């Protein structure tokens, strides 16, 4: 019985609720998420950890959208090659998006999953929100 019970735990944790962290437009149209700690997560994790995650995410997105010599060079090169260069090469933005995906995966594994939370990559939600899924906490009173 205990076996099947823990198997169930592993396979289908029930979603208790979802928290959505919205975009912060105070700096303009750049991609930035609010770092305010949602009240629903208070029982699950500490504020500092969360704010650190959000800040890193914001920094990564800022890096993706940064206007600098490198991005201008890439833009000009792309224009000169009639954008065919992107058939072979990734844009800077996409490279950073991959980095972000890796970072979120890391964070999920190390910090969020042990607490029964799951961060969804904002790109999956059209860069509108950071969706945090709160799973039912079965560890309490289920004899795990």
């Amino acid at each position, binding site marked *: 019985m205990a076996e099947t019970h823990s198997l169930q735990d592993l396979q289908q944790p029930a979603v208790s609720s979802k928290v*959505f962290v919205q975009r912060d437009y105070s700096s303009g149209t750049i991609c930035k998420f609010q770092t305010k700690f949602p009240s629903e997560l208070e029982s699950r994790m500490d504020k500092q950890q969360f704010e650190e995650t959000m800040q890193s995410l914001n920094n990564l997105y800022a890096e993706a*959208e940064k206007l600098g010599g490198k991005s*201008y060079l890439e833009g*000009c090169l792309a*224009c000169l090659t009639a954008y065919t260069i992107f058939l072979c090469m990734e844009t800077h933005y996409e490279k950073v998006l991959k980095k972000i995906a890796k970072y979120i995966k890391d964070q999920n594994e190390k910090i969020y999953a042990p607490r029964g939370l799951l961060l969804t990559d904002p790109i999956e939600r059209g860069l509108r929100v950071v969706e945090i899924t709160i799973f039912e906490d079965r560890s309490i009173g289920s004899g795990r």
Partner: protein
Amino acid sequence: MPQGSGSALSNFQVLSFVLMLKWGYMKILLMLCCCSFFIICFYFTSCPFLAQQLTPIIPVLGGALFLFVLGTLLRTSFSDPGVLPRATPDEAADLERQIDVANGTKGYRPPPRTKEVVINGQTVKLKYCFTCKIFRPPRASHCSLCDNCVERFDHHCPWVGNCVGRRNYRFFYMFILSLSFLTIFIFAFVITHIILSSYQKGFLTALKESPVVVCFFSVWSIVGLSGFHTYLISSNQTTNEDIKGSWSSKRGKDNYNPYSSGNIFTNCCVALCGPLPPSLIDRRGFIEADAPQMAPPTNGITMYGATQSQQSHMCDQDQCIQSTKYVLQAATTPLLQQHSSEPVIITSSPENGTSLPARASLTLGGPCSSLPLGQPTPPTSTPSLSCHEATDMLPIHGHALNHTHPLQEQAALHHYLTPEEVPSPPGMLHCGSPLGHSHTVQTSFYNPASQDSLHEDSVRGLVKLSSV
């Protein structure tokens, strides 16, 4: 991933391309025809003469320029302008909850919801989009023709058959710039031809044989448009903002553009050479067939036109159903039979940046007609004559005019007449984008339970029509 997704993907892409060619891009074809007309005229009348008299480089240069114009036109039309995917149901519910808490009301729909945010010292109002169920980012706007919120919305260009937004503004600008060079080039050499051949034939004869008048008008309009957009780029404004006078000093002494860096060079660099963000709508590829809901699932959007049921009844339901039935009856092709279990999802091409706008799926709704099928085209909309292959498509254009405006659920008018659109007769305005209206059809007859079969049937029907 649904079964057979690989082949399904390619089939859908082919399908979407075919459907787009038939329904959504008549304006592009018209534009292509105009450009080609100029070039052909030029090549047949002036070029041989000039190649002999001056240098054979002239036709070569003209040809190269023309190819560049074509390339940028196609790029503008077929790239995602920066569509914002619709909110997932969970997100929408969460937002609603927050708004209800803020307003203290429940049940009925309150007045347009806005959020204020201070950007660079300017207070900007963020509006809530009832269709997409999101608070629009600053500078984004909902295009009623494409039925999507578009980031950094400039305008919906009927000639290009697409919205011009954050991701394709530079291609649009390069298109009109290169087109201006092309028209000036042709005009200059046509004049040269007239002058040179007037020595031999006489001035009036030479004048009659050349397409100078058409050239003249097109030069002025295109060059004017390029100039206007150059001004917009250098001041980092969108056509939308310029028309509304959002940042005009007439509104107030303290009114300034918070997005402009103040430096013309920087503004130009940002607009034209800045990083190109990837498309937000090609992330998932397929909607699973499980969803009984109408709203696009977790990804937010893969289908244009799958609008929420709350979209008001723009179209007379009976007439829409009738015309749709006509489409369905015309359908006999088994094209989609192997994919019958899957709703039609048009995904963007895997190529970076050049995502098909997936507008084709809008056509699933079929035409929305106010006239009985087979009625002759309204006389004003001459391009609409070329805009349809099947008679059932005819009435869209006459009908479209009536439907565009009621589509405003939100306060703002999303389709702004731009300088290039103003001269067009009304029929033309909507000609290139009948897709924007078919979504209304979808909402009027869309039954969640029969969604899949209806999808498949209507697409089959439209594919049949497209193969005519």
